[in-house]
């Protein structure tokens, strides 16, 4: 199971990208992982047309999986349109971690995705269906 903690994940955990709070920002949302109570927030700044992401940051404390997931996800958001953010496939968010994620840690891996969707729709988003995200056998 130590392969879940490859250097790649631990580097993101120790030195996460895009960590902090943007001020000013256009979109903001905070949400939590019910299994551990970890809270994560995300702030997004939009470009002048208010349709594309100019900058993004996440904040909050959490496990290595949730922090690495947020670090990796936020790296990919600049320049994307709001429609593209809505269309992000949660399965890809999990796969981008590059390590096997089982059902017990799925919410850790998807908290950043859920917070992002919350920021885009301005309300709490649903957790993706576990069966959809784990389909294809990424579970260890």
């Amino acid at each position, binding site marked *: *199971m*130590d392969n*879940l*903690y490859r*250097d790649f994940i*631990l*580097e993101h955990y120790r030195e996460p990208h895009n960590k902090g709070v943007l001020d000013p920002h256009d979109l903001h949302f905070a949400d939590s992982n019910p*299994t*551990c*109570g*970890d*809270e994560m927030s995300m702030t997004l700044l939009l470009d002048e047309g208010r349709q594309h992401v100019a900058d993004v940051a996440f904040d909050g*404390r*959490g*496990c*290595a*999986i*949730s922090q690495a997931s947020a670090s990796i996800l936020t790296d990919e958001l600049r320049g994307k349109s709001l429609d593209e953010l809505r269309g992000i496939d949660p399965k890809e968010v999990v796969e981008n971690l590059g390590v096997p994620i089982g059902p*017990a*840690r799925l919410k*850790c891996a998807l908290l950043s995705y859920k917070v992002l969707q919350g920021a885009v729709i301005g309300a709490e988003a649903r957790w993706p269906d576990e069966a959809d995200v784990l389909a294809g056998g990424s579970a260890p």
Partner: protein
Amino acid sequence: MAIEHLLPQVFDGSALRADFPVFDRPHRSGRPLCFLDSAASAPKPRAVIEAISDSYGHHYANVHRGIYELSEDATARFESARTSLARFIGAPSAREVVFVRNATEAINLVAYSWGRTNVAAGDLILSTEMEHHANLVPWQQLAADTGAALEFVAITDDGRLDLDDLGRRLARRPKLVAIGQVSNSLGTINPVAEITRLAHDAGALVILDAAQSVPHMPVSVTELGVDFLALSGHKMLGPSGIGALWAHRELLEAMPPFMTGGSMISKVALDGTTWAEVPLKFEAGTPAIAEAAGLAAAIGYLEGIGMENVRAHERFLFERAWDTLGAIDGVRLLGPASPDEHAAVVSFVIDGVHPHDVATIFDGHGVAVRAGHHCAQPVMARYDLPATTRASFYVYNDVDDIERLADAIHATQRLFRSA
């Protein structure tokens, strides 16, 4: 490490693992299972599994109904389980034991039946900051529904109930005091007899969440003096799906039913119904029949060891675990240090590593622990922690488990320091 002050070990926990088939199960780590999550739910000894199978295979029919040998046999065994449980918790009468699904349901039964009848706007319900959500959320709901106030006794920095704070709040004469005997998140053993005496002096009834105590130490409702007690079978080596509420008979008789339907009636007419006598008044529908047989077998297994011995064994393991983990740099322990006030539930934090990561890495070493808020989020908030890692011990644990726990902590620290 100072060994001299430790109690002698009373029995070999590792030898008992042969009684529990789950320890034969291969773990993906390639190592034997080191199970340190009994506070969540306990593995089952073969005696319990066989009692359930025997119930279904040889003694199964619905209870309290059939006028035939098999049903009479099933009923006698079901009622015998009730008698066993009454004896196990020092209850004066088996008629005071109500079978429910688990401690959560037992507490809800009291909150709905007794609470909605006896608590009104302006009344005070007193609980503690230490409670499992099962002994907290039902009282929030009762307060919201009735307009009663709900307050919580504070906990000290070292995880004990603040008895001065309790005294101040009791002076406002609450209707009910809802406390746990052993905290599932901190391991604290609360002075229930003393608290109950103080609560009674203030005119309050006491409901005891004994889910974490009845499996691990001698518990007598008579000696403690409480008014209600809730327990779960699955934490005491018994099956899931069965637990119990104990209460004084006069209380149960004065309470309205919680759930209604079959079995709990005396006479039903289209224009009205009368209730069965206690405890059946609170057991609507077909109960957990085979589970009752399993619970009786679990009680038999524990009585075979002796609850004084179970407590002494766990006290020994607690002291050893507390000393071993406390000696590791970067590990913080929660709860009282005294083994008199701390059950064999050790909640800890490894600096710089989130408990979820800890549990995942431990699992890679075949060590099963609980990581999270332990259904006690206010406790986590009290210590400004998102979560903790919790190792909880039972009869089949031994010093080898503590060694593997310590090894897993060292491995986790090495992994998070490397790269």
